[in-house]
């Protein structure tokens, strides 16, 4: 089983209308991630991306899941997640009501003829060069997932050697309506 078994991660672009950001606060207990992943797997729900880390309170972790609602109605996904005993709070974060961010690390081949163009593109997207050799450049970009998408597209013609994205994380905007977790 792959976490992304049914996802369409091969397609370009990570921000799509049928994607919804679900923010969970979970008890920091052994196996909680397996419970969430197992639920998605056995119910046939699709995960596009998933990020998990402890919160300011060591008893809880925050899980940000981008779900694909083509597989099941969002409400059904939320209701099933709510049945997991270790899931303490669930909210769906609409992009307009949330700060969303993601981190991207990329290594791109950088032969002499196109190197200047590559460096210009990296600078233009506001990415930071972490390492540069004669053959390749590794860069980092943090920010809005759509900006990461466009940076990834700009790098593609140069030849992506390796790419790692963290998946989206989000927090509700201070002024937004809805219950605070």
């Amino acid at each position: 089983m792959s976490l992304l078994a049914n996802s369409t991660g091969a397609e370009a672009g990570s921000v799509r209308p049928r994607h919804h950001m679900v923010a969970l606060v979970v008890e920091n207990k052994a196996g909680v991630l397996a419970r969430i992943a197992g639920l998605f797997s056995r119910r046939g729900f699709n995960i596009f991306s998933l990020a998990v880390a402890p919160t300011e309170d060591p008893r809880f972790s925050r899980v940000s899941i981008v779900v694909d609602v083509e597989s099941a109605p969002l409400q059904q996904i939320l209701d099933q997640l709510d049945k997991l005993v270790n899931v303490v709070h669930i909210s769906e974060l609409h992009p307009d009501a949330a700060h969303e961010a993601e981190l991207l690390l990329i290594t791109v081949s950088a032969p002499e003829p196109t190197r200047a163009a590559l460096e210009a593109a990296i600078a233009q997207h506001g990415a930071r060069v972490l390492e540069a050799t004669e053959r390749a450049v590794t860069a980092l970009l943090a920010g809005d997932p759509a900006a990461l998408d466009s940076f990834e597209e700009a790098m593609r013609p140069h030849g992506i050697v390796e790419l790692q994205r963290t998946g989206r994380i989000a927090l509700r905007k201070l002024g937004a309506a809805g219950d605070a977790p």
Partner: protein
Amino acid sequence: MELTGAQALIKSLEAQGVEVLFGLPGGAILPVYDPIIDSSIRHVLVRHEQGAGHAAEGYAQVTGRAGVAMVTSGPGATNVVTPLADAMMDSIPLVVITGQVASAAIGTDAFQEVDTTGITMGVTKHNYLVTSADDIADVVAEAFHLATTGRPGPVLIDFPKDVANARTAWREPRPVDLPGYAPPGAPDEEAVQAAAALIAAARRPVIYAGGGILKANATEALRRFVDLTGIPVVTTLMGRGAFPESDPRWLGMPGMHGSYTAVTAMQQADLLVALGTRFDDRVTGRVDAFAPRAKVIHVDIDRAELGKVRRPDVPIAADCCAAIDALCEALGPLGLAAERLGEWIATLAAWRERFPLTYDRSDSGQPAVPGTVKPQFVLEELRRLTPPETVLVSGVGQHQMWAAQFWRFEEPRSWVNSGGLGTMGFAVPAALGAKVGRPDKMVWAVDGDGCFQMTAQELVTATAERIPVKVAILNNAYLGMVRQWQHMFYEERYSEVYLSPDLPDYVRWAEAMGCVAFRVSAPEEVEPTIEKANEIDDRPVVVDFRIDSMEQVYPMVPAGASNDDIVVHPSQAGLPR
């Protein structure tokens, strides 16, 4: 007071009021078996761990309390996975304790090690791996709370051997604090008003009552609701006993082998009042053709059921009893006139008259095939000759459907079967558990010959533990339901379904297990044999009923078909619908 973890576990079970444990010891659970000697809890030693789980289910189904099973690690744990899945599907409160290898050995492929919490994650409401003996009291209290509240279900506690042997200062459990667990209670007032308005306006309403009525102890509330509204009732396979079946407002059981009237009433309804039920595929048939003109009020304590299969017009996430009370309160002042349903009730009565459950009686049960009896006749006689409060338990297959069709349940918790998972072999161990839970009631298991062969060894348990259950094997020498599908949908190409009527010899086998056993192969033997079986109360009884193997279960909605295409008994096929 300092105790071992094992002692703390048994003490915690005692504190929960546990009367009986169904189990089988082994290496990793060994320390916990020592304090059982000194405990007030009765331990029933099963012959296979699957039997422990199903016995605990049977106990839970008839008592409404959590059933408890205890097994060892590795194969003990994997053998109990089927009962866990069964209990998960049918929302049965279970607490299952599995031994586990010592904490330091976990992950090393130790002897009899499996990842029990990982394996059972998808078939439990929740599970625990106990990591410290100091946590035992709290974990046990949480497990019972989770198993028995909200939508009931199985909870597993995996208990490493070193934790069992560790020493801990005994303390009472802390009040249960589960920040992520809050089952709904009272219904939303606005939703109740909206539901009341739909009920008042409906002219062809049906109450679609499921197992949730029984779990919520809402049978009295349901009766009041029916008295108030006059709406006729269907009860699902898991909901049988939720409404007295001698009441003329009971239409029967819906579903693949439901009665014509129950199935068709739902198809023609303008309103379904779904109470504690989950629109199972065996009830709905093809979902997009199910009850196409009906608005739906759906009450369930599990919010995720509301809209999982069918989008309700009024969803109510609440305890069934509280929701029905609220509906009654909202409807009371409206003064619903009984005449509003007059035409509908007359239509239903006409269907019932034209399409009763039937079989080829061929002169009072005389079968076409010599040496056999009709299974439906056996069930009618068994119902007639046993006390009204008898608990009926069944396995899975044709015999289960005949039992559901030809028995009449008047009381809640008098019917025990494997509904959602369809677990063959459920009946014998579940009957044993039911009899332990209700020793005052007569317990009959109706089993198939295929099912019986899967778990019959638990009759040894029944004899040894003096649990006088009675088993009626409807022996047609076939895996009958599979045979029926091959008959209907595979052009009578019977593949791997023949079992033989006398291999094994069920009478001698039962006798070898300490039971009294009879064989019945003619209609006139049915009554005297049941009478004899009913009189035996000091050991289990097995009756090998040789039944007509050509018999099919009718009506039937073919898999994937619309409920409108229900196939009735051949003798009714030409009748106008």
